[in-house]
């Protein structure tokens, strides 16, 4: 472990790494168990500072809010939760496509006869090297089909979150989050029909999706929609 690694471990655990530095470090973390252990060790020690707080009494009203959120359906709900449900895992091939298609009320797709025509297609490129990384097809029913070609590995405590920018006034809108890069369809929120030139991007966000509803993590890939000929 180099001095530079130790510096970045410190900055990371203190929440001081941002942007490209954060993305690069998290990529390194994903592939380096020794580095992950060093991060956990420092977290374990510094966590003693957190534990010096005087705990507040548990607030029953806060529990009531949490309990009511547990009851909201997950897969059919608007993003960012849709793609994060564990039901996305453990099924393969057609079974997964069928489950997903049914759960978002969309019984069509390449496995099932006539495929619908996307209104727009975007090829998302990696931020650094501008390699094609993810293909996005946007449909008239607000859903998108995502075909990852090559996506940077993510740390365990991050998820991929898909965003689009219908127009600058609206700002970025979450299309959903996912953990395992694979071909998938995301229901998407109710938006105006996708336009040529519309931005799509994928960022790394904390587990559960961006806490602010706006992208907070590093941009991994992005691209602009074009009308297919």
């Amino acid at each position, binding site marked *: 472990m180099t001095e530079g690694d130790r510096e970045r471990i410190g900055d990371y655990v203190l929440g001081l790494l941002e942007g490209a530095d954060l993305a690069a470090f998290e990529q390194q973390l994903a592939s380096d168990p020794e580095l992950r252990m060093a991060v956990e060790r420092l977290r374990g020690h510094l966590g003693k*500072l957190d534990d010096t*707080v005087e705990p507040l009494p548990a607030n029953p009203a806060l529990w009531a809010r949490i309990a009511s959120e547990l009851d909201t359906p997950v897969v059919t709900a608007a993003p960012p939760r849709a793609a994060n449900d564990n039901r996305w895992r453990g099924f393969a091939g057609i079974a997964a496509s069928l489950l997903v298609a049914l759960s978002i009320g969309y019984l069509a797709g390449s496995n099932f006869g006539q495929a619908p025509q996307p209104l727009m297609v975007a090829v998302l490129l990696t931020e650094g090297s501008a390699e094609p990384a993810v293909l996005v097809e946007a449909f008239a029913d607000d859903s998108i089909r995502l075909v990852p070609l090559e996506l940077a590995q993510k740390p365990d405590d991050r998820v991929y979150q898909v965003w689009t920018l219908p127009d600058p006034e609206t700002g970025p809108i979450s299309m959903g989050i996912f953990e395992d890069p694979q071909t998938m369809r995301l229901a998407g929120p109710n938006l105006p029909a996708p336009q040529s030139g519309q931005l799509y991007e994928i960022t790394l966000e904390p587990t559960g999706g961006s*806490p602010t509803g706006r992208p907070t993590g590093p941009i991994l890939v992005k691209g602009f929609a074009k009308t297919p000929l």
Partner: protein
Amino acid sequence: MFHLMTDPKTAEQLIAQIATGNRSALAALFEGESGRLVAIAQRLLRRRDLAEEVVQEAFITVWRQAASFDGSKGSARGWLTTIVRNRALNLLRDSARMDFEDSEKLTELGDRQADARAAYEALSIKDALRHCLGMLDASKREAVLLCYVTGLNHGEAAAFMNVPLGTVKSWVRRGTVALQECLS
């Protein structure tokens, strides 16, 4: 009549039950841990409502992702702390930067210095972290504590300590490198 006492379950045991969809285990985890987590988030965010929002999201995350918790990487309480800290820090970093000309804000920052120092002084005298923090120069210790305990970023810590940005960056880096060496 006998009163049946069962040992309170550890956070690890509760998270294993939550992973199977056991809602009363989540309620028990909330009962045992939420007060600590709200207080941690509040020390970072300075507002109870935001702190509770962060903890609410954290418990939803725990409910959905309990199966991904890996006890070999760290403790369950540490996992909860990390989820809450990350969300709170994202919220802090995302909100508008502080205006340090504002005298009210400087008073607020004064509270932060007190918070940072109180956390250090509340550490057990036998704790290795306390010992290793104590080995640092006062300025490095203060920079590390301000950033970790109260969530200041480099720029905010620099403005508060009245030193250039680069100085704070190097204090924090050298401080955390020395801590890791001392703690290993």
